[in-house]
């Protein structure tokens, strides 16, 4: 088989710049072969090398005494959770493949991240995902609506959404991993370029940590798992380019096909093999398949590796060395075995009826040498290609649109005319509506560990003995393992980040931390997925740079080190770039089962208390900038988003946890998209007992005064009508010292998204105590109402809203299902 000659066109086709090609030649000291060119192109793609983002990633806090394996060291970070136990977790994107083939794209995203976790020696115990799509409904007022021909993109958005969810369900359910949490946003900027970020977490004992290192000169290198085919050729390179109209047709071959059943067998066999102690190093073949796994394991160990492609199991005839090296066929692993213990690999993989093949050996040359049909087809210094990829300091320039954003004020925005109608519209808006249409398709309970199912602020899982990978027969677990409780949340409001990358970045982390605090958990660490557009555009790169600064500052504030993550750039469609969307998955720990807290109101008569400010008076937009209200009701994605005061936020989380630990908090729900009104409504309607059986409960809320005294019944003040606040000052936002009354634009009061707020409920007898405790803890707390009564009633200075909880629940619970029917 003759290989094509290397021409500048071929180099360009491989996504390498002329400068990168020069660097490649310098690395090799000669012209590359065709196979080598392919190898370099994937290893130096953004997906594998982080060449555009590495300088930024270095600014993340990555240290903590709990970190056992840090960011960038291995396939996933590992955190100590005490008693000799640890968790491994990571998030990764599969955006481009999902745009082209949603079902398989998303399914293999899940498969890839699960492999990253068991590669570390951990047993995967849960999955989480973060998804973004174009709108699936036609809003009354949709930003940039162009009328009649909008229908077809919406149908396509629904197709992508449905396909991605089905793909995630297919893979996770069959593998037998619960998908316990997630988030979904719908926005025009993701039309044609959906985001699919998949997260997996696994559990292991400290001594079970496995390394992706080709250790021990002379050790044999095994290939295990299904045979290599032509699917997913150069997927990593594909993921590092802009999506185009032709992508769907041309690139479908770059999308892999997943087999969760195979992955389940490979996972069980690998964990069984790891328990024997015969493994010197292990790495999954993910992005860039055989190429990446061989280069990286050799580079980490400072060794070389030599493989023979004739020994690689192949399911397509006449595959070239280029194709074998670049294939991203799924569910394959590379295992380096201590010499003399080869039989154990064979025994275990035969037991599971899995293909295996000894394909090479660890050498002392420092080179990755690939042989095919008796000839050397690639000979590359492993460390150089893996660790010395080009690094770019991209130019960053503040985007022009931000001037307009900063100039935005509410003068052209009429206050809400029918607040109940607006509340209903928000509850039924797919971004806010219940995601049960999604998570009811995911098995979220398998493995018997899910303590809080999807539908509350954070998922809570227990970690019990059988979550851990088996220990070998000769090694006995010396002590019983105490159960642990962890909480997980994933967040990322792209609209905020678009409108103010720095503040938006902070909010992404703050919201995840707040969700954990609401569940009773303290943060352990985060993994982040940076989804951005083309880094060569200075304005788009500025978004990336500024938001990373925000993320990093917030991670430091919450003492939540970054243990690893993923960058996905080039997320743009001909219609434009996506909103900059960093998603952050945060994992926390809950000390005792009695601290587990859920978001829904529990009992009639309980006091409802707002922790944090009713309205952020220092914000000229009162929390409406970038809000769901402005987007959904006014068709505006504009205005400076709410400010995030990290110190205040941190104090709030500490205080909330202190209150939870004291045993008085019966529910806690974070105030985010849709503001106070949506948060209160969700607290009334979000508990689900069983199929078709929600547990609905009313609430009587009074926002007419800054602080509602705990005792007087609401009727007594029913006749009172406070003067309508001075709306003019608020409308023009020209008074930086606008006092609280002036701030009370009704829409701001109800739907403003000021940060640092949580709604809790406590027994009526505890209310006074809790308000006093909050004061001591230094946070603002206001009793705003009582659980129970007829429906949800919110009294405000301007109007009283009354909603039937059955109707609110129906809008919130069924909106997505109706859109997808």
């Amino acid at each position, binding site marked *: 088989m003759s290989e094509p000659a290397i021409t500048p066109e071929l180099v360009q086709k491989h996504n390498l710049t002329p400068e990168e090609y020069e660097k490649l030649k310098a690395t090799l000291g000669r012209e590359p072969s065709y196979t080598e060119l392919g190898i370099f192109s994937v290893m130096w793609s953004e997906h594998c090398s982080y060449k555009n983002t590495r300088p930024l990633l270095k600014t993340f806090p990555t240290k903590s005494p709990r970190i056992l394996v840090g960011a960038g060291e291995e396939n996933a970070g590992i955190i100590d959770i005490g008693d000799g136990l640890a968790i491994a977790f990571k998030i990764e994107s599969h955006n481009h493949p999902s745009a082209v083939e949603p079902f398989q794209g998303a399914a293999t995203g899940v498969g890839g991240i699960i492999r990253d976790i068991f590669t570390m020696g951990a047993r995967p115990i849960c999955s989480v995902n973060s998804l973004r799509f174009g709108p699936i409904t036609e809003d009354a007022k949709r930003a940039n609506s162009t009328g009649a021909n909008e229908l077809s993109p919406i149908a396509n958005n629904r197709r992508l959404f449905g396909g991605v969810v*089905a793909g995630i369900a297919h893979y996770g359910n069959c593998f037998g991993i619960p998908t316990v949490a997630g988030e979904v946003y719908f926005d025009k900027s993701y039309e044609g370029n959906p985001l699919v970020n998949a997260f997996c977490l696994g559990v292991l004992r400290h001594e079970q940590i496995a390394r992706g290192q080709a250790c021990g000169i002379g050790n044999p290198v095994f290939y295990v798992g299904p045979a290599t085919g032509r699917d997913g050729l150069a997927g990593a390179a594909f993921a590092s380019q802009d999506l185009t109209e032709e992508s769907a047709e041309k690139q479908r071959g770059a999308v892999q096909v997943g087999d969760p059943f195979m992955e389940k067998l490979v996972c069980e066999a690998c964990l069984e093999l790891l328990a024997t102690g015969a493994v010197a190093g292990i790495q999954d073949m993910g992005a860039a398949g055989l190429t990446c796994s061989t280069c990286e394991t050799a580079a980490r160990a400072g060794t070389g590796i030599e493989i023979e492609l004739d020994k690689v199991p192949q399911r397509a005839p006449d595959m070239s060395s280029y194709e074998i090296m670049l294939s991203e066929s799924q569910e394959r692993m590379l295992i380096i075995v201590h010499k003399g213990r080869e039989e154990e690999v064979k025994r275990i993989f035969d037991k599971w009826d899995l293909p295996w093949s000894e394909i090479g050996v660890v050498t002392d040359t420092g080179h990755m040498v690939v042989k095919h049909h008796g000839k050397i087809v690639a000979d590359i210094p492993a460390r150089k290609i893996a660790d010395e990829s080009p690094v770019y300091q991209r130019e960053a320039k503040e985007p022009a649109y931000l001037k307009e954003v900063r100039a935005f004020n509410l003068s052209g925005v009429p206050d809400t005319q029918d607040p109940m109608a607006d509340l209903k519209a928000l509850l039924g808006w797919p971004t806010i509506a219940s995601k049960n249409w999604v998570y*009811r398709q995911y098995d979220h309970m398998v493995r018997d560990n899910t303590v809080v199912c999807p539908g509350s602020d954070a998922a809570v899982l227990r970690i019990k003995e059988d979550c851990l990978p088996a220990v070998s027969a000769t090694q006995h677990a010396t002590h019983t393992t105490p159960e642990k409780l962890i909480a997980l949340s994933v967040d990322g409001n792209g609209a905020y980040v678009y409108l103010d990358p720095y503040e938006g970045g902070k909010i992404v982390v703050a919201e995840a931390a707040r969700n954990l605090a609401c569940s009773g958990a303290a943060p352990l660490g985060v993994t982040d997925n940076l989804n951005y557009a083309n880094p060569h555009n200075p304005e788009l790169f500025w978004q990336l740079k500024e938001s990373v600064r925000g993320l990093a500052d917030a991670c430091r504030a919450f003492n939540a080190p970054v243990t690893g993550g993923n960058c996905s750039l080039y997320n743009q469609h001909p219609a434009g770039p996506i909103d900059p969307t960093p998603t952050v998955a945060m994992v926390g720990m809950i000390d005792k089962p009695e601290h587990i807290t859920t978001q829904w109101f529990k009992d009639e008569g309980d006091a409802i208390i707002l922790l944090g400010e009713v309205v952020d008076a220092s914000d000229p937009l009162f929390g409406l900038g970038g809000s769901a209200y402005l987007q959904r009701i006014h068709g505006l994605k504009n205005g400076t988003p709410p400010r995030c005061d990290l110190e205040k936020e941190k104090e709030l989380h500490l205080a909330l946890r202190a209150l939870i630990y004291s045993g008085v908090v019966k529910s806690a729900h974070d105030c985010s998209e849709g503001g106070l009104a949506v948060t209160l409504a969700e607290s009334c309607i979000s508990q689900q007992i*069983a199929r078709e059986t929600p547990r609905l409960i009313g609430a009587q809320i009074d926002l007419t005064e800054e602080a509602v005294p705990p005792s007087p019944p609401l009727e007594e003040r029913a006749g009172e009508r406070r003067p309508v606040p001075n709306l003019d000052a608020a409308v023009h936002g020209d008074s930086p010292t606008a006092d609280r009354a002036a701030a009370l634009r009704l829409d701001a009061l109800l739907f403003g998204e000021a940060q640092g707020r949580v709604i809790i409920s406590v027994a009526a007898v505890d209310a006074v105590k809790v308000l006093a405790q909050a004061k001591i803890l230094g946070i603002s707390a206001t009793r705003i109402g009582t659980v129970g009564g007829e429906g949800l009633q919110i009294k405000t200075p301007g109007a009283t809203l009354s909603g039937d909880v059955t109707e609110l629940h129906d809008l919130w619970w069924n909106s997505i299902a109706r859109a997808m029917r």
Partner: protein
Amino acid sequence: MNFAVLQFPGSNCDQDVVHVLRNVLGHSARLLWHKDSSLGEADAVIVPGGFSYGDYLRTGAIARFSPVMDAVQRFAADGGLVLGICNGFQILCEAGLLPGALIRNRSLQFRCEHTFLKTATADSSFTSRIPPDKLLRVPIAHGEGCYFADEETLARLKANHQILWRYVTAQGEPTEAANPNGSLDNIAGICNEQRNVAGLMPHPERASELILGCADGRLVFESMIHALVGKPVALAT
């Protein structure tokens, strides 16, 4: 008691069943590999949920040919207690140990949610400890749980009181809304004519501990244990 929990490639609720039997109920439970041709010492067999062999051909269609299934057939023929949960129910139907079949959910989507179950009869080794009017809150998680049988079979199931559980509302009514998958007659679980082999789509092992929100499912296992404990006594008298 000694429970044998089958393990096929692709089983994924095997550990959960073992956990409940061992750690919650205090009995002995061990995994039995699908290539084993003997059950060893077993008082009862549980066929757990999952995606045996990936369920690629048809749910349970390949698992029934496993060597271990021959042993289960003999065990059942001798009157041994066999319970199939979810994929285990599908396997028992494919193996002919239970009548009928489980087909794709009417919604054409996988469904994972809690359901209410009404026990139709206490006259079985799987339901004897369930109080007559108690509704069980037990989760389902399946894509192919729509129970189907021809009219004749269905009539026989009813006549012989082989229907053990139905999906019902919180008020105990077997309505269409309460039916998560389109099963005939809201059927969630059945037993064979001899009443020693049963299958159900809901997962009692996921509803056996209060920390997971509900412990109703334990009653199913406790009924089996009760039947097994009772057995030697019955023989002695």
